[in-house]
């Protein structure tokens, strides 16, 4: 009898010691200060230790931030995150064919975006920073590729078109173009999943029909469709590849009366093992097994590349067209060094054609092709450029203006507002 009791006591002791011991060890380990201040994989700053103030203390803000700091700096955080996502994918059947993910804390991500934005864009190759974003409903994983699903409505499309019209009407003598980029799923969606997104072509048609008749509409979607089985969109990232951008460029050339450069003889470099944004969002194993590569072309024509400033239209700092230091999750930033507010390219083609491009990040992969056809290419990021856009156009002698946006951006109030506000 006493043996049983002793056994019982021993088990109880082990239970208690293990529990308290593990927590204590973890607690001590958590107090060792960490060096990292940025989470590469999440592409954000880790919550810093809160600074003390009486008001922060009494409002409870101090402790809230301390909680965030603690979990952001928890020992072996990345390993724990992997355990968590493995666990979450083991609590049901993971269809090998499709998966859907719900970004659960997108509003949180957006709020954080406000506090951590600019430095990262300027200081390094951290890519693709939208200060405020749109709420994306879902990510669709299909055959180890990730897709966003388009669901924009005609009213929003019309409001985008009207903003472009207003530029067209106030810039006589400037030929305006518009190019809407479809999403990858447009070309991959099967009958079975047809309801997942709205078809892109009618939405693009609707925008083009709303545009003034003298605006030239670029039917990139049709050219892309002809090449749908090629590597035109990334598997794990929401962007298109340089090849996808190339086909859009060909469509543009057709509209603009230009002869597109052929890629056959052009040298290129490749950044391998790129796991992009949609992988980071979903941490899907299938995506992990299907990494991307980013190819960028080294055109024969020489080009002078300048980085400009929102504050001073005559400030141009010579730089390089490709941010070759971009790597890993940031590989897409190789194009135009990521999302700089304004850049300019000047070429040997003294043909008098000077174009400005207003874009979000999709435009980065597109713009470099134009150095083969234009004397000057100015690229403005609609999200970050805060300078005097109209005066800049004049100062640079711009005579063509291209608005290039992916179909989400063209249906998102945030982007539409940003484009509208370029004109002060």
């Amino acid at each position, binding site marked *: 009898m006493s043996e049983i009791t002793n056994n*019982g*006591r021993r*088990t*109880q*002791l*082990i*239970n*208690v010691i293990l*529990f*308290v011991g*593990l*927590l204590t060890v*973890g*607690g001590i380990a958590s107090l060792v200060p960490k060096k990292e201040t940025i989470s590469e994989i*999440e*592409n*954000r700053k880790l919550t810093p230790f809160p600074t003390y103030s009486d008001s922060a*203390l*009494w409002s*409870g803000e101090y402790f809230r931030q301390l*909680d965030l700091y*603690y*979990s952001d700096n*928890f020992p072996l*955080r990345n390993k*724990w*995150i992997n*355990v*968590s*996502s493995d*666990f979450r*994918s083991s*609590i*049901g*059947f993971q*269809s090998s064919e499709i998966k*859907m993910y719900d*970004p*659960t804390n*997108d509003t949180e*991500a*957006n709020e*954080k*975006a406000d506090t951590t934005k600019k430095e990262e864009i300027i200081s390094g190759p951290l890519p693709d920073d*939208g*200060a*405020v*974003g749109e*709420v994306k409903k*879902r990510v669709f994983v299909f055959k180890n590729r990730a897709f966003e699903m388009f669901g924009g409505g005609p009213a929003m499309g019309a409001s985008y078109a009207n903003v472009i019209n207003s530029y067209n009407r106030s810039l006589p003598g400037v030929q305006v173009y518009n190019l809407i980029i479809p999403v990858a799923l447009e070309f991959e969606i099967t009958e079975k999943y047809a*309801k*997942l997104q709205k078809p892109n072509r009618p939405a693009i048609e609707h925008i083009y029909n709303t545009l003034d008749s003298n605006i030239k509409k670029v039917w990139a979607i049709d050219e892309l469709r002809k090449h749908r089985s090629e590597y035109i969109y990334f598997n794990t990232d929401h*962007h298109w590849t340089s090849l996808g951008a190339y086909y859009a460029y060909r469509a543009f050339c057709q509209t603009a009366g230009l002869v597109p450069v052929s890629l056959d003889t052009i040298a290129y470099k490749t950044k391998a093992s790129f796991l992009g*944004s*949609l992988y*980071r*969002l979903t941490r899907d194993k299938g995506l992990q097994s299907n990494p991307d590569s980013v190819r960028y072309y080294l055109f024969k024509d020489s080009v002078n590349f300048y980085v400009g400033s929102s504050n001073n239209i005559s400030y141009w700092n010579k730089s390089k067209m490709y941010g070759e230091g971009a790597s890993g999750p940031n590989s897409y930033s190789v194009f135009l060094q990521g999302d700089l507010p304004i850049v300019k390219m000047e070429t040997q083609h003294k043909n008098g054609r000077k174009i400005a491009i207003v874009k979000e*990040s999709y435009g980065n992969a597109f713009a470099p092709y134009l150095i083969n056809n234009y004397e000057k290419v100015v690229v403005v990021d609609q999200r970050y450029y805060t300078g005097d856009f109209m005066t800049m156009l004049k100062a640079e002698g711009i005579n063509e203006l291209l608005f290039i946006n*992916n179909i989400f*951006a063209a249906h998102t109030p945030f982007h539409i507002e940003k484009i509208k506000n370029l004109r002060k």
Partner: protein
Amino acid sequence: MVFASLIFLFLFLPLNLLLYYSSKNANWRNWVLIIFSLAFYSWGEPIWITLMIFSALIDYINALWIEKYRGTKWAKLGIVSTIFFNLGLLITFKYDVFIVENVNSIFDTSFTSPGYGLPIGISFYTFQTISYVVDVYRGDVKAQKSFPKFLMFVSLFHQLVAGPIVRYAHIADEIDNRKEKLSDISKGVTRFCIGLFKKVVIANIAAELVAKYMDADIGGLSTGAAWFGLLMFAIQIYFDFSGYSDMAIGLGWMFGFHYHENFKYPYTATSITDFWRRWHISLGTFFKDYLYIPLGGNRKRVYLNLFIVWFLTGMWHGASWNFIFWGLYFFVFIALEKAFLLKWLSKLPKFISHVYALIIIIPGWVIFYFTDTAKLGAYVEKLFSFGAANAWSAELTNDITTNLFWLIFTVILCMPVFHKVHDTIENKLKKPAYFQVGSIGLNIVFLFLCVAQLVGKSYNPFIYFRF
């Protein structure tokens, strides 16, 4: 602070346990608990800690007053003061906006409410102290002479924030003279791990699905999705709340306190009356002992008494009409059951009673969920739009299949299956060694998964919403 947080698990709790057990001195142990409890409370609401201490002081004095003037007319003053003071606190801090808004809309006035915001735990500690003073008045329990000990009772972090509503009478002996035992601490550890698992691995995952369906644009929901969202909320609220109670009870055991059970598999109830004997038991018994019975209970005006009790039970859950409707919804069924329904049900197979109870309980949660009555109406309409074209969605199938094992496991957890297996092994097989090792192992697995989920929650990829 909350239990299901990394700071609580890795810093607060181990430090508290180590300091508590670093001395055998009862006084030291009490002070450790008081200081940790106040720290726990200040973590979320540093400003309201003064209010809690002040409130404890008033009730402490009132109880002593009652004892001093026992048998005289002055004794009543103590109890009146306590009830006025505590209900005053609730009205000022919890119902201010609600009352002012309703007064304004009825009388077309434009009063503004002070809008202090709701201090954490106020609904719980006011009820705990009311029950204490009433019990002293009734002579059921002796007044606590030591203010630190009384403050410890009021502020004990185990149950301060989300219950159960612990009655002073239940732990009076343990406040003065408790004996911590290894077997209790070990039981407490196990119970805590189970509670944590229920909160983090069941309730939190259910909460994501609830948010997805119930916070969505209701017009676009399919009927199936509306029901699924509602079921997920039934799961979320049960596992969240009962998980919290488990953790509270487990923590109590770790420090030598024995709190009463707060949940007994409520979804296995056979009637609404039965449900409320299994759901948030400490609240139901509070209203029974301190309101229903003093009002006359079953002896006179029984339906009026029931109405008052359920009106207030609803209102206790939140300062909004939907909570009152929710309470009255239960009043209707409890009254019907009292009148005849229970008798009818007793003649039918038990299975039908279970189905009946769930059919009432689960749709009831929709009233609880939506504080906005327009949304409530729209959601109810969705729930009952059978045969509509939009009956099901591919996304719903996907959510069900990708969480299928979790769903099945969760439904099993709503029933006392594991409890019965556990009892059978413990009683018939006399706790075999593998069982003991297994149960320790399970605690570690639970803890491990919960930590992973809690860290995983901080994973906040900051990417493509920003293109």
